[in-house]
């Protein structure tokens, strides 16, 4: 019985009198792709911030790989195998793509008692090579020595994902990765994520507004509204849920 990668239990976040999240629970299994959707203001990004440690939580607990990370500061949580991206891309503009990806290796994302990923005796590639390889797998090789400000928006998003992936985490959290991408680019994103996930075996927690992407990728979906979970299940189940329909489209009023 494999342990969940991520367990969020009864998470609550308050800012003074404002309740941003209330009693949110979810579980992500190893290798699972789990979507988080909900109307604007539902608290999706707050949830991400609470899990990654950038926002303090008022109640509840978070476990990563079985370890309770609730009290840990943000920078200490990465050691347990978690990486994330941001809604607006957070890259160092004057640095090159390669250097930005290298930043993802600043601290190894492998959990303290992790399994070796390679056959024993295989050479362990150096940091530069790992970064270069991830870049190659995401189609960024030709841009490796360009500075970020020269890149298209789609490529910048891919660089940020590369930074998250290079340390071979067990869970990556993607905050609206498709935002701002054109139709074909969203397909490229989907294909890339599926390909990398098959290769590296990480779990994905995905916040998205592009429902088609969520349906294509996610095995499980959690729906938030006004800071609380209103539905959870497979994509199909959730889309048929009356509460979810109401949250997005409003109530039908019988005259």
């Amino acid at each position, binding site marked *: 019985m494999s342990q969940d990668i991520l367990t969020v239990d009864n998470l609550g976040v308050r800012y003074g009198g404002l309740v941003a999240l209330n009693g949110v629970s979810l579980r992500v299994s190893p290798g699972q792709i789990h979507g988080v959707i909900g109307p604007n203001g539902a608290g999706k990004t707050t949830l991400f911030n609470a899990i990654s440690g950038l926002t303090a939580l008022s109640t509840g607990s978070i476990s990563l790989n079985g370890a309770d990370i609730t009290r840990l500061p943000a920078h200490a949580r990465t050691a347990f195998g978690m990486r994330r991206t941001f809604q607006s891309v957070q890259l160092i503009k004057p640095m090159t793509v390669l250097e930005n990806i290298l930043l993802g290796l600043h601290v190894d994302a492998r959990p303290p008692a992790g399994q070796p990923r390679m056959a024993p005796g295989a050479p362990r590639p150096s940091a530069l090579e790992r970064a270069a390889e991830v870049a190659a797998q995401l189609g960024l090789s030709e841009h490796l*020595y360009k500075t970020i400000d020269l890149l298209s928006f789609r490529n910048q998003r891919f660089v940020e994902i590369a930074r998250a992936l290079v340390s071979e985490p067990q869970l990556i959290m993607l905050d609206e990765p498709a935002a701002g991408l054109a139709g074909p680019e969203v397909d490229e994103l989907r294909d890339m994520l599926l390909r990398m996930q098959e290769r590296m075996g990480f779990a994905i927690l995905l916040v998205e507004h592009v429902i088609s992407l969520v349906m294509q990728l996610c095995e499980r979906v959690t729906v938030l509204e006004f800071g609380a979970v209103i539905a959870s299940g497979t994509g199909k189940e959730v889309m048929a849920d009356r509460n979810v329909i109401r949250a997005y489209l409003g109530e039908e009023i019988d005259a």
Partner: protein
Amino acid sequence: MKIILLGAAYVAIGVALTCVVLFADPYTQYVMNLVLSSIVVAIGLNIVLGFAGLLSFAHSAFMGIGAYATAILMARLQLPYVLALPLAGLVSATVGVCVGLPAVRVRGLYLALVTIACLYFFSWVFVHWDTVTNGSNGMSVPTPAFAGIPLESDEQKFYLLLPIAALMLWLAAVLMKSRLGRSFVMVRDAELAAQTCGINVMTTRALAFGISAFYAGVGGGMFAMSVSFIDPHSFGMLQMVTQFGMVLIGGISSLAGSLIGATLLTILPEFLREFRGAEEILYGFLMIVFIIFMPDGIAGFLRRRGWIGATDLGGRAKRVRPGRSGGDPSVPAQSRLAAEMKKWVAK
């Protein structure tokens, strides 16, 4: 545009400076010594302000601490210069970390205010702590000696200071290419992402304070040796603004820029001695003009023209070489990885 290898350029500058010194009069030699100490101080300020993005006004206070520490270690503990200088740097660095650790918890503007308070506080200490700094009377710096030979003249001091400045410059370049240096920039530009990459923002910033203070301290010690007599009033706001000018005009986030700015702003005042107020007007005017029209400074201008490579932060990382997997190079490449490497390593 030809890209001049930065390393070769630095060597050329070193040679040029030496030639100037060989054939110049004692006063010019003295100014060259000041240039060298300013370069080290300016590099330090660039580390904390340019690379780490922290507006610290305390830098010239750390310089003063280094200057006094050097003089005291040499005079009272009879330490040779080559020992006193790095120790003075460590003293400054320690103070820098002590100031930095609480200070970096507040945001940019407030950090500026806290560090200004430090600047004035230490200036007051230099003037009033008679037992240690000799107060308003100033403190004289013993003549340094190398291998038993006392270095009395400015020219002799130059030959001691030049390798020190070169070493500090090289160390800074190594630092900025390292993991720690990159973490400074990440904390400056993408603080939240840095945290999610495992970087402890507060300790990284405090470390930036400490390292820059080390540079300020060493620069201060070099300054002390050049001037032979420390005036407690020399480490206040005017000195700080001059240092800002060096970094801004030379080019922020650029080691070459620190070199250019430090040289310019040490030599220029020499021409302005006779004109009252001219030094301040010039600095103020240049600062404003550069902030408005050339925020990258002179180095940024040169970089955009392609005259210097972007090897300062933001530039090319080392090329990836094949076969670096740590195995026996005679063993044929096993993985697809090595083949991929070969494809674009030929660039």
